[in-house]
């Protein structure tokens, strides 16, 4: 579904990704792992076209999107849930959802569907997104991305700073999406979440993929987690 091949990218003169590859298929959860500053967020931003890719290629559903205009990339069917949520804080919940629906011209049925997934949001449609609790904000960020009815979901640390019951709820939604056939790229720090959710993992160090493996392998050789993440 999504193939990232040997990409280089960064922020102006700061080169961060220096040959990163990974790929994800439908109904599969790929976890990107690495220490703080390894380049996980940079990788997702590069895929979304927010950072210029100076070498390598990104293909999505067999079509190259490496240098596509950034606003056209989500319209192909990539839903992005950025680190720190990045909601439109001074728009209402309903307007944030509307922004998601607009991206791929989705209608009322999609709106109803996401509000069914997150009933809490339905009660707060007229509330400013910036005044939601952390958990509600993460629900809204997820709902907004699902409004695209994307084929791939890119999630950057969706459980950061949430309490256990909220984490469980987000996790349920991720598994539900997987069951519905979504391809999911997940950046996650919590080992228990990785082991419970992921099918494949890619370890990233200094902007390069250093090892790609399955989660079963990780369960049998937990030393890898220590080696790459220091946990």
């Amino acid at each position, binding site marked *: 579904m999504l193939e990232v091949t040997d990409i280089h990218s960064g922020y102006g003169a700061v080169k961060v990704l220096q040959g990163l590859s990974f790929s994800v298929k439908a109904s599969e959860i790929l976890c990107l792992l690495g220490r703080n500053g390894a380049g996980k967020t940079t990788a997702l931003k590069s895929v979304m076209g*927010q950072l210029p890719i100076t070498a390598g290629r990104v293909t999505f559903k067999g079509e190259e999107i490496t240098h596509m205009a950034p*606003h056209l990339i*989500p319209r192909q069917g990539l839903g992005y849930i*950025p680190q720190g949520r990045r909601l439109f*804080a001074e728009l209402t919940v309903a307007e944030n959802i509307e*922004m998601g629906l*607009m991206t791929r011209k989705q209608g009322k049925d999609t709106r109803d569907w996401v509000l069914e997934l997150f009933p809490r949001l339905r009660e707060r449609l007229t509330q400013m997104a910036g005044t939601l609790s952390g958990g509600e904000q993460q629900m809204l960020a997820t709902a*907004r991305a699902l409004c695209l009815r994307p084929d791939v979901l890119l999630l950057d640390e969706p459980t950061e700073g949430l309490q256990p019951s909220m984490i469980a709820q987000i996790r349920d939604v991720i598994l539900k999406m997987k069951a519905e056939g979504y391809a999911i790229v997940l950046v996650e720090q919590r080992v228990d979440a990785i082991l419970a959710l992921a099918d494949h993992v890619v370890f990233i160090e200094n902007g390069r993929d250093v090892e790609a493996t399955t989660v079963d392998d990780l369960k049998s050789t937990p030393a890898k987690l220590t080696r790459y993440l220091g946990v």
Partner: protein
Amino acid sequence: MEFGPHLMLAALEGAVISAILVLTAMGLSIVFGVMRVVNVAHGEFFMLGAVLTWFVATTIGGHPALGFVAALLIAPVLVGCLAAFADRLILKRINYDPDRTIVATIGMLYIIQQTTLMTFGPEARPVPPPFNTRLSLPWFEWGEEGFALFWPWGLSITTYKLFVIAAAATVLVGLWVLLTKTKIGLIMRATQQDSETAQAFGVPVGRVYSWVFGLGAGLAALGAVLVVPIQQAHYLMGGDPLLLAFIVVIIGGLGSLPGTVIAALLIGMSDGIISVFFSPTLAKIIATLLVAMVLVFRPQGLLGKKPS
């Protein structure tokens, strides 16, 4: 004239000034709000609107209303397109970097001003108002027989000035509907808050910026079309509106549109009233003092948010 009717007359002058000012300042405020661009060339878009109005009106000839209506349609659109083009050509290339956009728009200011001088010459150009009937206004008093209306000599307003006030109010309402009730407005507000994330939801941010820059300039030009039947068009006329628009935007709170409206009313009314009773120079002095006070005691402006 007695004090009451005199004040009423001054307030009406103030309302006309506010009407023009609110359109100009809105343009500046929207551009700053969405794009974070301080557009120093804003006054020149105003001037260009005025000069184009004269040009269109004299080219068409015939009844003044004909030329005026044509200018009302043509000048703001033309100026808006020019601004959108300047955005693509210049501001986009320098990546909307805050410092460099100031320098770039100063450059635009001189290019527009000098090009207008070379094309249309230095003369001030009058444009006849499309209609200009003088309406006497009533005043009231409590006499021995109770409440009574009368028509004091000199208390009057022209229909054109009333039209200016009504037109500005209509445009404001339209703008409010555009920003709060339409998809275009939603996209503009989302872009204003987080352009990168807006892009991740399919918003062509570059195109939105061009439209917004064009809209801002078009609003200034619209204010200018309304003003030329009262005040002649001239290649140097952009300075005052720029200064006043900045004053209004600072007092209202950078990027706050309701604040901009309130501040425009405040500055316009006080300008009108102080000019009539004392002198226009004193009005400018007081407006400038007001800005200084706001900057000292409430730097975020009347309705602006405190930077967190």
